[in-house]
């Protein structure tokens, strides 16, 4: 099986190691991974802010880059939702839409993997569900199941499905509200060693706020934890 990795702009710049972990993980599952070099940004920031022509240009570019891919796998729920759910509104023939998957979703729904390994034995994690993965892709159980099957304990968190306050440009257009939302998440966080999420934007938001407040918990991308689950390497 052959997949194209869409690393996404946040993934490329801020979560390069996690994206590399996604490649290692997929290869370890006998998936052939390629990385089309012309990929850039999916256009979501522009779409979200209401700048449609710009969003359409970026969508068209991305669709062209992945035109020949059998599967497009993204280590990001939000960008995967952009490709699958929003491209059909922007493009006439968005074939890329139905071939795009968030990483955990791809593993569980397409590769039908239920266990990756036992590399997370004894780990206490909290999982933050990104809004677009949850509501647009309807990815809810897949990442949690993969983490748990590797031995992690996903500690219940009453706010695990509430928005972190990132929301693209919202984070800088209403920064005080955005930060107050992150604070609600942090204030309700249970006793865990790491918070995990599939979404880079959410991680930047939560980690940025936690560091500013001196909350010492690490916030880590799902791809890295899944690779640890498989490889047993922390």
């Amino acid at each position, binding site marked *: 099986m052959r997949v194209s990795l869409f*690393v996404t*702009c946040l*993934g*490329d*710049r*801020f*979560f*390069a*190691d996690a*994206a*590399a972990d996604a*490649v*290692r993980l997929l290869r370890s599952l006998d998936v052939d991974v390629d*990385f089309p*070099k012309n*990929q*850039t*940004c999916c*256009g979501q*920031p*522009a779409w*979200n*802010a*209401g*700048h*449609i022509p*710009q969003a359409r*240009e*970026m969508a068209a*570019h991305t669709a062209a*880059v992945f035109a020949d891919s059998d599967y497009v796998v993204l280590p990001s729920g939000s960008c995967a939702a952009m490709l699958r759910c929003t491209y059909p509104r922007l493009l006439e023939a968005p074939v890329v839409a139905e071939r795009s998957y968030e990483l955990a979703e791809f593993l569980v729904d397409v590769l039908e993997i239920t266990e990756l390994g036992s590399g997370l034995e004894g780990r206490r994690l909290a999982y933050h569900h990104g*809004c677009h993965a949850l*509501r*647009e892709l309807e990815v809810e159980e897949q990442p949690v199941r993969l983490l748990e099957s590797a031995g992690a304990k996903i500690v219940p968190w009453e706010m695990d499905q*509430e*928005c972190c*306050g*990132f*929301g693209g*440009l*919202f*984070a*800088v*257009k*209403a*920064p*005080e*509200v*955005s*930060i*107050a*939302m*992150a604070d*609600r998440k942090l204030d309700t966080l249970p006793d865990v060693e790491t918070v995990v999420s599939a979404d880079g934007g959410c991680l*930047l*938001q939560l980690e*940025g*706020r936690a*560091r*500013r407040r001196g909350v010492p918990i690490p916030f880590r991308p799902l791809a890295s934890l899944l690779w640890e689950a498989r490889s047993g390497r922390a």
Partner: protein
Amino acid sequence: MDVHSRDYRARARQIIEETPEVREAVNAATQTFVDNRQKAFADLDGTALSRWAERVKSHALSHLADYLEEAEARLVERGAHVHWAETASDVHQIFECIVREQGVKKAVKAKSMLSEEIGLNPFLESCGVEVFETDLGEYIIQLLGEPPSHIVGPSIHKSLDDTRVIFHERLGTPRDASPERLAEAARDLLRDAFLTADLGISGGNFLVAETGSIALIENEGNIRLSTSVPRIHIALVGIEKVLPKWADLPTFLQVTAKSATGQPVGCFVSMIQGPGGSPGDEPDGPEELHVVLVDNGRSRLLADPEAWEALRCVRCGACLNICPVYRQTGGHAYGYVYSGPIGGILGPGLVGLEETLPLPFASSACGACADVCPVRIPIPDLLHVWRQRAVERGLTSDVERSVLGLLTSTATRPRLFGWAEKAAGLLPAPVLRHLPMLREWSAGREPPRLEGPTFRELWDEGIE
């Protein structure tokens, strides 16, 4: 009501930074509403119910003129007076005539968001009418001189102690009075108002075309009293409130109550078909019933092919309760009678986009509101329609346009994009902190770590 939405960010900041107790009170109250709603729908096929309710409302809106005429005819047959008002000033004129002709000096008023929309209280006071808000929450904020901060719970931002203080000052209750004692003080004062008022004013949750019924849901009994005891009753009803048939009403009553507070139906429901006492044949009830059908922007929104669905709204407040943005501030930050997600689509639709900016942007686009809307209004999509229009009309900031323009032109030139991602890592942190947008980011959050290679570089080196 005046619209002050432009100050959204400043007001929100002020509430969050200066009155943390408001945020706490709003959080607690909305969480209770959310939990109760969830329990109420636990055993139901909520999706099937909302699909049905959506279709009934869409059907009613797509045949609105006929249904309005039908409701009017039924009401007139029963001896009610039906008035039509295009604008707030039309409503004012209608009230002025009734109040003057009938010598009204005192009015008791049940909660009505439409009356807030058209600034009814200040107008009536200018006509020399003393107006008593009779919903306990509305009464509290009337004493405080504040507008409601929530469609269903107008005073959810106020604590027990806030009410103690204002009741102590205005009603002379002890400084440490219990909630029961406070309620009793309000009850006594307002009971006197009910018995001596000439006029009762209400809104209307639904207007049933087939029977001309105005339906109202409540818990305190103040709506029943306002519409039963005074000699005249005036009901203010938005033209979008129509339900076609009597048989539609029971489900809408239940769906609305469940969505709002999780109750099976409110403690009291009134279904009003006409005046009661003389000239009617009933022992008591108002002698005159006036129904004012109000447009105030609704017909214009109905004509908007992309945004009309906001008119299905039944004002249950479920989208406010679930909204993580609303919960940080309560309704006052929004500067408009309807706050939260629904305010972001009703404001531009009823008042105008320029006047209510940046309400469509006061959302993180998380989509939670769409999950709970009992009439399936695609709120996130409609917010997005208004965002799009704001951009098209040049109402958003130049900085934003430049930044997104820059993103687009690099994102369509892959080599430049790769280079830019790499170069970003070379910029010193103090410089980054002063770039537009990153400045806002850094005010309360650490900037993202930019050091280390990009993924492209790792890929080129080879991933082991």
